[in-house]
């Protein structure tokens, strides 16, 4: 059987490059996929004061009505916290503000501010309550859904695109179906081409989204145990798991754990990993 023709679409969204692929799909499917990403981004970004997430953050201390998508993502965040033993904690916004990360880095790196004294994050279930159709944050708490949203969206988007599609949202990707030639979707993974089907992959890194504050180099990956940018002997972790959301959680947790603890943590949870 000849391979299905692959259609693709590339665009900038979520502060990164996104790529959608489909085998045997109409190009319009990918256009609708892009529109869905942009729509979700507008609601889930913390950088726009009118976004749904920003309004939830601003309403800390009171119950706030949330959409189905945000509710699902908040529940996914609580699962991620459990899966990672507390290492993936989306209530990281105050810590990010403490290092001056107040706006998208494409608008310039933070400067002219001192690093605030870090404070360990409280467990996510203590600061975030989710009920059907509404959510509540403890006063002073704030969420940045960041990479977790990308992984979650990649999973949902691959499903929306069709039975044989791949959604890559800034390195968090979900491959669905048998790919163009029936052997899976060929994905570059640490320089090796792996064939993914019904699988996700993600990379967590401190090599990007990093900047200098005085003599101190800071980056966006906060360690919830300290509230400060992670101090790990690893600078990058890539993972293949059962979904993009899971891969995102495991990659971030591995990076925070460091090389000695990462391998036993990943074994049994992931299908492939690269630590560097």
């Amino acid at each position: 059987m000849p391979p299905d023709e692959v259609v693709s679409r590339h665009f900038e969204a979520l502060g990164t490059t996104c790529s959608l692929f489909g085998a045997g799909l109409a190009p319009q499917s990918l256009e609708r996929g892009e529109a869905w990403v942009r729509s979700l981004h507008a609601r889930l970004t913390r950088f726009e004061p009118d976004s749904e997430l920003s309004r939830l953050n601003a309403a800390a201390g009171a119950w706030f009505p949330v959409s189905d998508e945000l509710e699902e993502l908040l529940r996914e965040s609580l699962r991620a916290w459990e899966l990672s033993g507390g290492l993936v904690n989306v209530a990281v916004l105050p810590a990010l503000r403490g290092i001056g990360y107040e706006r998208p880095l494409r608008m310039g790196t933070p400067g002219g501010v001192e690093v605030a004294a870090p404070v360990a994050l409280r467990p996510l279930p203590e600061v975030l309550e989710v009920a059907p159709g509404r959510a509540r944050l403890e006063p002073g708490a704030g969420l940045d859904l960041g990479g977790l949203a990308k992984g979650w969206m990649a999973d949902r988007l691959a499903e929306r695109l069709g039975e044989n599609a791949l959604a890559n949202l800034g390195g968090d990707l979900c491959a669905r179906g048998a790919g163009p030639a029936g052997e899976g979707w060929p994905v570059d993974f640490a320089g090796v081409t792996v064939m993914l089907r019904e699988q996700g992959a993600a990379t967590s890194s401190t090599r990007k989204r990093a900047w200098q504050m005085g003599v101190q180099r800071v980056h966006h990956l906060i360690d919830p145990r300290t509230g400060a940018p992670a101090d790990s002997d690893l600078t990058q972790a890539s993972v293949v798991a059962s979904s993009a959301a899971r891969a995102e959680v495991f990659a971030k947790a591995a990076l925070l754990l460091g090389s000695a603890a990462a391998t036993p943590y990943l074994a049994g949870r992931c299908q492939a990993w690269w630590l560097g």
Partner: protein
Amino acid sequence: MQALVLKAGATALTILAALGSATYVSGHVKNGSAPLHPAVLSAQAAGGQLILTPSVHTADVEAVTSTHAS
């Protein structure tokens, strides 16, 4: 007399089964140096440690995309 023979037979059978089991188990102790299951492929790649379990297949084809830091 018949009951005694039956009891002795049952006892002998039990002892034989126990001895046989003990002999089998002693000859099949856990091998600490046995390979991992599932076997994993470990290699140095791109300046780091790459681990691939059997559920991930590699191929000599061009990738359409990659997982990367963003």
